[in-house]
């Protein structure tokens, strides 16, 4: 079943993995879904860590773009983009093709690694 436009990222949202990790790119009969958002509210915005269920495994991930319009002069993406991360913060993939928003630099958190493997910035 297909629902309407997703508003930010909550539990059970289907996300799109945008890095070149093996776990994110091998096809599976179920799309990767969010099962927990590491936030006081259950809603994840750009720069929040979430727990993803991919191929029957649990992996942490970082949100790099969502469909919901954010603050003024911030980019809005057409898909909920996510980058896979390990528990210690190291990204699992080595390159990211999709554009990554600059707001990640301002936010408190460990984003320099994700920005270092990204190619385009928005």
């Amino acid at each position, binding site marked *: 079943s*297909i629902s309407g*436009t997703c508003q930010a990222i909550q539990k059970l949202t*289907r996300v*799109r993995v945008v890095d*070149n990790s093996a776990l994110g*790119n091998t096809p599976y009969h179920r*799309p990767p879904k969010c099962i927990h958002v590491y936030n006081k509210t259950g809603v994840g915005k750009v720069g929040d860590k979430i727990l993803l269920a991919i191929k029957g495994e649990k992996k942490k991930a970082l949100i790099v773009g969502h*469909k919901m319009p954010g603050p003024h002069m911030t980019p809005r993406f*057409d*898909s909920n983009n996510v980058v896979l991360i390990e528990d*210690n*913060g*190291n990204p699992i993939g*080595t*390159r990211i*093709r999709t554009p990554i928003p*600059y707001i990640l*630099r301002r936010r408190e958190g*460990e*984003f*320099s*690694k994700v*920005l*270092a*493997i990204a*190619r385009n*910035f928005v």
Partner: protein
Amino acid sequence: TAPPKFNIDCVVDLLRQENAKDICVIQVPPEIKYCDYFIVVSGSSTRHLHAMAHYMLKVYKHQKEESDPHTRIEGKETDDWLCIDFGGIVMHFMLPEARETYELEKLWTLGSYDDQLAQMTPQSLPEDFILDLT
């Protein structure tokens, strides 16, 4: 008074003092509005990386006074990749194995002609993607 920490020469001198291996400084063109200089350094062990990162931060805090906000060390829980973002300069401390895996220098120098990027070209939209023109 001591010269400001902006100097890339100052940073490279300190890294040479610390016996850092393979110091790689890449000047980033201003079109990529990320930083001016991108530095990748290898260390011999986890303790070496931690020591270098903390020393850099200490020197920075000693010399820089008000203008730039506080910088933090990212990757303290990891044992192979640490980074510090000094605004205009971004430094990455990695172990040689991590450096081989990620190949950051290739990405930032070659740009679109990077071979890892070329290998991951076949990317299509997922099946449940709906283009909503809201």
